């Protein structure tokens, strides 16, 4: 994944992508392309998924039983595979989200004094 500005590429961990997919599917089932677009849209274009890496992530989630897949019809009446969150996945989403916030909080705490220093 990369941000819009290629100068500042932010590497995302594999696990983070899984978390974003689960969150995206929380609202409703979606097909692969829609998930990619949703992530871009909701991150206000900060996160642009290299769309190919979506698929290994999706299959990993299927293998773990956090999402399930089914055939369906998309908006423009085309056949597509739809992914849906399973109850297990829903529970896992809560866990992962909590972990993420914890991590983010910890990093923020470490960074704050330096910023304050920088400011002052």
């Amino acid at each position, binding site marked *: 994944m990369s941000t819009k500005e290629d100068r500042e590429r932010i590497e995302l961990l594999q696990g983070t992508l899984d978390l974003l997919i689960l969150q995206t599917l929380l609202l409703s089932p979606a097909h692969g392309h829609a998930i990619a677009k949703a992530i871009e849209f909701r991150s206000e274009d900060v996160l642009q998924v290299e769309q190919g*890496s979506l698929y290994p992530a999706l299959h990993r989630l299927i293998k773990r039983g956090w999402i399930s897949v089914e055939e369906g019809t998309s908006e423009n009446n085309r056949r597509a595979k739809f992914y849906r969150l399973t109850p297990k996945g829903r529970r896992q989403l809560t866990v992962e989200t909590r972990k993420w916030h914890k991590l983010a909080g910890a990093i923020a705490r470490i960074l704050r004094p330096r910023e304050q220093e920088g400011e002052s």
Partner: protein
Amino acid sequence: MMRRKRMLEGLDEDIRDHIARETQDNLERGMTPQEARYAAMRKFGNVMRVKEETREVWSVVWLEQLWQDIRYGLRMLRKSPGFSAVAILTLALGIGANTAIFSLIDAVMLRSLPVENPSQLVLLQWAARNSPNVHGYQSAGDCANDMRLGAKNPGGCSFSEPMFREIAKANVFSATAAFANSGRLNLTGNGAAAVINGQLVSGDFFHTLGLKAATGRLIDTTDDMPSAAPVAVLNYGYWQSAFGGSRDVVGRTIELNSVPFTIVGVAEQRFTGITPGSDYDVWLPLSDAQRITPLMRWRDRQSDASYWWLTIIGRLKPETQLAQAQAPVSGLFRNEMLHGAVPLFHDGAAGTPPPMPGAPAGGNVAISMSAVPQRTPGAGSVQIASGGPPPSAGNKPVIIAGPPGAAPAGGAHGSAAADGRKNLSPEDNPEIKLAPAPSGLTGSRTRYSNPLYVLMLVVGIILLIACANVAGLMLARSAARQKEMAVRLALGAGRARIVRQLLTESVMLSVLGGVLGILFAYWGAHTILSFVSSNQPRPLGFATGVDLRVLGFTAAISLLTGILFGIAPTLRSARVDLTPALKEGTGSSETTGHARGKWFSIGNALVVAQVALAIVVLVAAGLLVRTLANLRSVDVGFDSHNILIFGIDPTLIGYKGPQADSLYRDLQGRLAETPGVTAASYSMMPLLSSGLMITGFHWPGTPQDQESEADALGVGPNFFETMRIPFLIGRGFTASDFKLSVANDGATPTSAPTPVIVNHAFVEKYLGKENPLGKRFGQAEATADEPANAGFEIIGVVRDAKYNDLRREIHAMMYMPQRFGGATFELRTAADPQALLPTVRETVAQVNTNLPLYDVKTESEQIDRLLFQERLVARLSGFFALLALVLACVGLYGLLSYEVSRRTREIGIRMALGAHQGNVMKLVLRQGFVLAIVGAAVGIGAALSVTRYLASMLYNVRASDPTTLAGVAVLLAFVALAACYIPARRAMRVDPIDALRHE
């Protein structure tokens, strides 16, 4: 697997769809079609990589790693073909031996009955606190019988026909069937006359077992009626061999004991009889029993509730448990025994059985149960013989003949002693127990279980030796592979992964060994079974085959073996210390102090273990071989060389007593004059055929109801001269003796006693210092049911001779003039007995063409058959013992060889410092000898504790016999010396200069 396939199936399409959508979006954003597509593909990323990554999500990691390990292992094995070949061969021998013995155990003991749903079949067995007072009791050895008089808690599985009919009517089972040995059958109407074995079965027999016909049909209930025409069903194998397997056999008529039977069908191939080990040629309906039994031997069994002769099996109803069915059946039996028309249980004075004129067929005849003591003493003799050659020889078949209901020509001997019989008392507690047929019908199994277990133990030890051997080889090899291991570890391989890979290599070795071993096993088991078969009077009803259970067993031990011998070398390899191993200049000859010490002791320990185990096997084999030698050198009391024996049974084709008698004498005369025959005679059964008869009588001077007993044998004229049993005093039988004997056995016995000849042991037991000649005994007063019996008079004494078995000591024995029934002829020949056979057959045919010979063999062969178990075990354990010795010494040789090459540098230094060649040789020899001696010591200790389990099989040699132990130790010393020789010589010839340069 399926999930993976499913998931990956649509992947290509999904990716294409995705890119198409993105392209569409791009078009909407205003790009040109080409730009749109290009941007979409760029955004997607590397399609190939995506596909690969997705596939990897679904891959089963360990499976792929295993496949990698296997390929690597194969490569490594191919690189050292010498090691691989030796290891695989060694393992093949060990695994093959185990598989062979296991397949025999499987065929004999584990295989289920060849019928439909065998677990539903049950066998009826009776038990009580005292023996029933029956007229007659017959068993063909289908199950364990104990009908000895005075036996506590007798039991058995023979029942009367009325009891069978009642049980069948009671409808406790979904189907009930009964069967019994038909006795010897004289077959005519299909080429030359022959003697075959048959089984009488009730109408429902084949239906109960759920069998099908290979051709034609099987016996059914309409055939089992007195009015039905006699029909017969052939054994498949017999059909092939005697009738050429031709389909037109259905509808043909044959005569069995001169009675015409129509063949209606052939049984399916896998069925030779319901009892393990049995192999019947023909099945006949129960209702024809009387037709085929010679009149003299017939008792009215079919309506006699006190003649027990049928084995009964039933098929449980689908919802019924065994215990549920047992209660009603047992109740029925109990009722009948206690309150029935003929109460049968009490503890003592039962009827006296008359001498039954049945000649037991060679082999497997039981000891009698001693005669029933009588209120009115009479010449009661107990039966022993089975009515015909019992095909299954596991449990000893028994016949106890009681006073006949329908008196045969021989008259009613023995007292029915109605007054002597008490009513059955409830304390006797007669009951029926049901046993699952597969375990209840033991047949021949018990006979073979002992040697098979011994052999299983022996081959188990061989496998351990083989494992230790290969482990030693692998240890040596692992030292050479240290560098490889070090490199792998340095490159980041986990130790667990390496251990797994090395174990995979060992398991592969043992699996390859197992595959080769199956071939060995197949050949080996086949050889053993043919050996066993050739020593039976009847073909053995067991067949080996490599079935699933055997394959499963082989796979399991291959796996375990691989892990067992792989563990130690593997763990050692994976613990390699990296730095010294990677350094150049330090070859495999030097490792750090600790590691070296450890390896040293493991390698030594393995050799010591191999030697010790080999000693155990050698000692066991030595004891068994000595047992065989001892048995063979037993003085049998007669000259057993150059004697041709064969049996004939004229009663089967309708000869009556006196007719048969004169036939025998006629035949004896003719045979005695045949060129090449030195002497001829006959007897009721051949000596040393395990057939035995015991007779009871009253000895004068003892209390009225006390019974004495002695072994008994009916013999023809010239018997003792033919067998070369010398007379001590007195004379042999004359023609008038025979006439008298026949008369005494008829309806009106004379007042003269039957002349008998006794052996020395008899004199010692009963007469002491008294003069035996003229002594009379066994007289009986007249009773309501039988006339007075004049008893016996001793007219001669002969030297002791063995009777039925080599192991059994010599008992008091009396020889009587042979009266009637089947007989075995003994011909002493000047030269090879077999060569005279055609002439003999001709001579017999001249007398009567319908008189076939059966059980033709020489006396030496007879003794061989008697000893076949000992021979089998001695041969096999001897073979395995030598194998073990070879393996152990190869192991010792390998270790020493390796040591020498490992210490070449050290040897060179020693020599350079002044050691002589002799010193170097001593160095090697010392190590070898120390190992051998320690191994021997451990081995002898182990042997002493193990061989006591063999004690029951030994003869005249103790389990702790010092001579055998010493002999084995000396043998080992020699072989160890040989094993040390080559490495020692190699050590001696080390050139110091080369050695010092050696890396």
